[in-house]
């Protein structure tokens, strides 16, 4: 078990810079999730940690040792690929024991760890099968088994669940969480799915366009997004953002409503679940028309249009007794407003 430190990491292909100024320290036993839209550089970063991509600039240390020039086999890490990358010509048992086979560990010595990992993952009966005879979920488990058997310094996961269907994805997500609690290994996990990130991570690294946007615990990111990108990426449904003109006590929205905001704010974010909905006539506030209603049972999504201000989504608990086209008043939970400046950065609320 070891920590991973990245300092000033950059990557360019030809003259094109795809990653820069990446500084990150993953603590021993920590589960860190890299999340971002496709093309943000998260997979490239993971592959650089694995040694599959050369590092253009900066330094990578695993367990305190500089790793930039060390080939993958010398880094003592395990990786689970999106495609699982199981060796088609080897049985499940040989797939899982392959790292030890390469390390010239005798057969008898390999059997124990393979059997234990298989038991943990419920693969006991499948050890003699070939990958082609396994379901997607089973292949996923074998890939994880191969990683566990090695007892590496760190685990790397590259979008491991994106080839599975929705139900299986939830099941495997729980499995990974359970496994991490049990083994407590240092883990770097790449995904584009913010739900995976929120549910699995000790800390999340949000990336966009080759740069780290914010690093923090899931609740940090939810409650204090550092900028509009993170605000929009974390949380589902997506946070509403309204623009306004600064006035002494806050921001004035297009319809004249004033919401409180600190100095320097140009836009305010409010999550759908923090927007209160009242039928028309009940006092002052932002007036809007209900254009679409999604009833999910436990919650209801109201897609509203506030004249001049734009579309706003409100999420309320349970069902509502509202008709399409009815007029409502929207009031934000004032403590949950996220102020952003003209560049989209979070404005600290000075108290």
């Amino acid at each position, binding site marked *: 078990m070891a920590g991973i430190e990245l300092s000033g990491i950059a990557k360019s292909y030809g003259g094109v810079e795809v990653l820069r100024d990446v500084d990150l320290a993953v603590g021993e036993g920590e589960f860190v999730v890299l999340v971002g839209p496709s093309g943000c550089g998260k997979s490239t970063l993971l592959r650089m940690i694995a040694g599959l991509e*050369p590092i253009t600039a900066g330094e990578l240390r695993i367990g305190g040792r*500089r790793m*930039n*020039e*060390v080939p993958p086999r010398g880094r003592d890490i395990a990786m689970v690929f999106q495609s699982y990358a199981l060796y088609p010509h080897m049985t499940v048992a040989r797939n899982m024991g392959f790292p030890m086979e390469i390390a010239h560990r005798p057969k008898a010595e390999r059997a124990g760890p393979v059997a234990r990992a298989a038991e943990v993952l419920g693969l006991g009966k499948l050890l003699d099968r070939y990958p082609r005879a396994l379901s997607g979920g089973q292949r996923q488990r074998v890939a994880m088994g191969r990683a566990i058997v090695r007892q590496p310094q760190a685990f790397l996961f590259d979008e491991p669940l994106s080839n599975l269907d929705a139900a299986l994805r939830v099941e495997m997500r729980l499995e990974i969480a359970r496994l991490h609690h049990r083994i407590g290994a240092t883990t770097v996990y790449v995904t584009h799915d913010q739900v995976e990130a929120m549910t699995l991570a000790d800390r999340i690294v949000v990336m966009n366009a080759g740069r780290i946007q914010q690093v923090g615990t899931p609740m940090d990111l939810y409650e204090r997004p550092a900028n509009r990108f993170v605000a929009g990426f974390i949380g589902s449904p997506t946070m509403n953002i309204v623009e306004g003109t600064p006035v002494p006590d806050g921001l004035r929205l297009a319809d004249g409503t004033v919401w409180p905001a600190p100095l320097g704010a140009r836009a305010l974010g409010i999550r759908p679940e923090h927007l209160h909905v009242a039928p028309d006539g009940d006092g002052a506030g932002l007036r809007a028309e209900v254009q679409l209603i999604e009833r999910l049972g436990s919650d209801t999504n109201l897609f509203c249009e506030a004249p001049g201000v734009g579309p706003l989504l409100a999420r309320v608990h349970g069902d509502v007794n509202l008709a399409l086209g009815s007029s409502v008043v929207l009031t934000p939970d004032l403590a949950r407003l996220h102020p952003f400046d003209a560049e989209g950065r979070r404005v600290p609320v000075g108290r």
Partner: protein
Amino acid sequence: MSAALTDTPGGTRGRLSRAYLGMVAEPWLYLLPSLLLIGGVMLLPLAIGLGYAFQEFNLLRPGAAKWVGLDNFQDLWADPQFWRALRNTLVWTGASVTLQFAGGLGLALLLNTRFHGKKLVQALVFLPWAVPTFLTALTFSWLLNPVIGPVPYWLSGLGLIEEPYNILGNPDTALWGPILANVWYGVPFFAITLLAALSAIPSELYEAAEIDGASGWQSFTKITLPFLAPMIVITVMLRTIWIANFADLIYVMTGGGPANSTQILSSYIFTTAFKRLDFGHASAIAVVLLALLMIYAAILLAVRSRLVRR
């Protein structure tokens, strides 16, 4: 790339460039044997061969080769055998490609349907492709021989020839012997490539056409043919070049005879080099053939790029 190299001051640059060099060099290392062989056995001789075309160079008339400019080509211009071979090349290539293509397309369309015993039928009809060329040539010259072959009797039965004689012995008909052998040998090639292209056409297209009310013939002309067209053009082009260069069948079946009536340019190259050992003359013919093929390829590629753009 070893751990011992790390943390040497000022080493980063050297390491990087060495690693970089290694990465650049690696694919070339794997390619090296291929490139050496192709360069030494094909490209270098190609250059030498092109040079021969401008030299007087005959192994039967010893003496150093000497540069003679365009003399070889002037000789060709005055050589009636060359013109005959050129005409024969057109007939040979045109007839072979057309018949192979027609036969191959028919076979591919048949094999693209469902029927019992498909695997076996497929293996059997593709078998001629695997028969060594010299054996194909010998087999067909035997089949055409009235002493031991049935074909002359069939032909006379059909009224194509008056009496069962060997068409290979008649200068007017001899070229059709190798063409027949070539069709037999080449139909599988077209069938295999066209079948691959056919099975790549998504079946939804046919279903959509059927819903839109297209007849079977309309489906064929509006979907199948346009889909196959770019592939057909490239296959036909490569095949034409290959057949124009393909002298084995003719050489084995007729040796270019009788009286040079079946000589095509490539077999003429071979007999000139092999029997007369006149390398200058042979290379001049080869250069003409190469030039003709390049012009042909350029035209067909232009057609193809228009087809693809459409």
